[in-house]
């Protein structure tokens, strides 16, 4: 479905005047850039819920959700961090603006998920390390609402909200249709990635169980 979004983005919305975006053709990056950003916010929400469940209740599923949230946050965060500056170069003439709050808080958020993913791989899986990473996941989540609201409060370089942004905002119906389809398809993509990750966790648990039985036998 994400591929269909891409195809629609290239073929179905050509009636829109791209000159309005000051970056002919490059505006079509938004058909994956925005859904990827929303998907990353969902992943950071999973990270927050998982971190809380582990830190406060010591729930095993909470830790697994924390790990999945960090990984998906990194995957979709990288999509946004890489496509954004490419779009910025085409539209603004510069890939990054250090004075733009939205860009900087999002970069920190993605760096945080990178830190967590690398930490999970590098550190021994103990309760202490889980507590440390969970606390980072809990407190780091504050950057999500700040990042979402940044374009409403301190809008500088990054465009304002395209949906629910009040008067003066909004998109051409054709662009909006493709974008909404993209958002829906990325929801399915996130759900599929989470399910796939849980299948892996289930297989790992089963393998550990059988290896334990074999160890007692031989």
């Amino acid at each position, binding site marked *: 479905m994400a591929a269909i979004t891409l195809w629609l983005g290239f073929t179905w919305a050509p009636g829109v005047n791209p000159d309005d975006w000051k970056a002919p053709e490059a505006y079509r*990056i938004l058909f994956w850039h925005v859904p990827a950003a929303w998907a990353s916010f969902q992943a950071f929400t999973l990270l927050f819920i998982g971190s809380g469940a582990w830190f406060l209740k010591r729930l095993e599923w909470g830790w697994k959700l924390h790990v999945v949230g960090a990984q998906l946050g990194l995957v979709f965060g990288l*999509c946004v961090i890489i496509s954004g500056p490419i779009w910025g170069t*085409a539209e603004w003439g510069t890939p990054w603006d250090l004075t733009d709050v939205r860009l900087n808080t999002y970069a920190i958020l993605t760096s945080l998920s990178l830190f967590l993913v690398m930490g999970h791989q590098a550190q021994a899986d103990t309760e202490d390390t889980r507590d440390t990473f969970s606390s980072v996941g809990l407190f780091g989540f504050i950057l999500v609402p700040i990042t979402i609201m940044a374009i409403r409060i301190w809008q500088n370089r990054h465009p304002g909200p395209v949906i629910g942004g009040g008067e003066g905002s909004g998109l051409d119906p054709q662009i909006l249709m493709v974008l909404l389809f993209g958002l829906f398809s990325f929801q399915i993509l996130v759900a599929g990635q989470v399910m796939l990750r849980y299948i892996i966790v289930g297989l790992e648990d089963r393998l550990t169980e059988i290896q334990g039985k*074999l160890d007692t036998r031989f």
Partner: protein
Amino acid sequence: MASGTLFLAIAYIAMIGIIGGWTWKLLSRVGELSDRLSAAESTLAISQPNEEEE
């Protein structure tokens, strides 16, 4: 126009590469774990009759 299309192509190739690479990694891991699990289950099944014989 050409540079806009070039930027567009680079951005989408990068995003497809990231999502595709990650999905490929997950699917490879599922395949690897399934193979190991089958092998372990076979070993476990073989060891059970031996124990009964003993």
